[in-house]
């Protein structure tokens, strides 16, 4: 069975439309969405309506959560003070234009989705705000996959797609309890994988093209897809809607705004 996994659409309807066409051409049978449907982009309502109309299983992203709960991501989630101020502007705008039923839908989204040995999350199994960067310590990365009780963990949030294979994961545990001798046990984890779907609407790979992944459950093959689309339409809409023009400039260059903690292990404590 061929799955398509999309993430981080951020109100970019043009990009979503192009990706859905590509998924159709690739003949994927099931689509999963890893959240962040809204924020920064000019069409949050249209994006949510499209996802709902296609009945795409979706988990909640950090932006979706903030629109429901109020902006409360901790400040250390932002890479800079400038990014934080711009994030607040985007939040305020989105919060103002979002339809009540869209907000309700975002509130209803689960944190995690599952299909057999596959787990789907926005950031990590711990939090929508945690980044599983490709450079994350191998032990910590393995812990996240094991915590999800999955063989393949699909995530987004970083806006850069990647496939990470965690092979030969050997864990040694030494236990010494009062009054008892020391015991040592070793566990060997089977191959685990982390698949980051990148971003449909706000890529961070230096080009404006949308990204997503295909996964074949029979062959376990992962394919990272990069889809060109008419990003200039989105840029024009950003300006028309009164969002900061710098959002359009950065979108054109594949420089997204999403929050990105410097410490990959950081978990937002709000």
């Amino acid at each position, binding site marked *: 069975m061929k799955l398509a996994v999309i993430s981080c659409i951020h109100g970019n309807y043009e990009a979503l439309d192009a990706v859905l066409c590509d998924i159709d051409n690739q003949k994927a049978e099931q689509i999963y969405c890893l959240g962040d449907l809204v924020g920064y982009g000019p069409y949050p309502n249209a994006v949510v309506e499209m996802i709902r109309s296609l009945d795409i299983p979706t988990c909640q992203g950090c932006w979706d959560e903030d629109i429901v709960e109020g902006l409360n991501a901790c400040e250390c989630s932002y890479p*800079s*003070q*400038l*990014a934080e101020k*711009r994030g607040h502007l985007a939040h305020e705008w989105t919060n103002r234009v979002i339809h009540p039923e869209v907000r309700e839908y975002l509130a209803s989204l689960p944190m995690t989705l599952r299909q057999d040995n596959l787990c789907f999350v926005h950031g990590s199994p711990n939090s929508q705000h945690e980044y599983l960067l490709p450079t994350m310590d191998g032990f910590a990365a393995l812990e996240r996959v094991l915590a999800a009780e999955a063989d393949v963990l699909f995530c987004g949030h970083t806006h850069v797609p990647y496939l990470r294979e965690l092979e030969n994961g050997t864990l040694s545990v030494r236990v010494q309890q009062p009054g008892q001798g020391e015991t040592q046990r070793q566990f060997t984890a089977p191959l685990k994988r982390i698949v980051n779907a990148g971003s449909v609407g706000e890529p961070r790979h230096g080009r404006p093209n949308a990204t997503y992944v295909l996964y074949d459950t029979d062959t376990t093959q992962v394919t990272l897809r990069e889809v060109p689309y008419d990003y200039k339409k989105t840029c024009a809409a950003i300006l028309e809607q009164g969002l900061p*023009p*710098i959002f359009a*400039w*950065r979108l054109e*260059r594949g420089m997204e705004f999403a929050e990105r903690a410097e410490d990959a292990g950081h978990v937002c404590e709000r």
Partner: protein
Amino acid sequence: MPHLIAISGPSGSGKTTWISQFLKHQSTPQYYVCPGLGDLSVDLAHIGYRFPWVQVVPEAQLTAILADLPEQATVYLEWGFHLDLGSPFLAELPWERVAVLPPDLAESDWHGWSDRIVTGNPVAAPANGYLPEIWCTPLNGQVFDPPSLEALLLEVSGGAYGQVGRMKGIFELPDGRAFHVDFVEGLPGMAYTELAIPRWLEGRPDRFSGIEVVGYGLEREAIAQTLLDSTLSDAALAQYQQHYQSLDPAEEALFV
């Protein structure tokens, strides 16, 4: 008799770099003048910080200083691209005229004006006399959030707020250091140079910092807002300074 040298050329051609090679020598009194921007000249401040033995001459004192120069003095007058080469000020004194020009520039007003030509950076000269705008602002006392500063410099030089051919500035960071930043369109990268001046870790720095942007269609208000959004509040600055003051040198090396 004092040696008077006037240097001109397009923005980014390397006038200040050419002058700087002579300012390293401390054997005779040297003066540096850069009229046209009042007290907001980044070059004036940069030369002052970099070569403390050189007397940098504020525009308002120019006439008085020139009237009373020591015999052995050398005066370097950086005549910006935006200033009139036919100015009476240049005609009144016996300036040696040096034009720092891009290698491919075969014909220009500078060719007719100069006594000698020095080959500079391969920058584009203004087309058909259509001069770019200059926007500058002092930033004295402002201290920048480093990643925000990095983002704004990338955006300004990348053309987010107009077509920028040149950008230079002096910026203060929360660890007390100040940096000179230099960008010339067409040359690789952006040069960041830490200034050899004392670290400022007590309140807002009381010394010159500022930015100068040269280009077409500059969105001045947007640049100014981005600069403001990137500067630290009093509370944030106090927190940083307390942190850096508490570090011993060994620990500090880890943060630099």
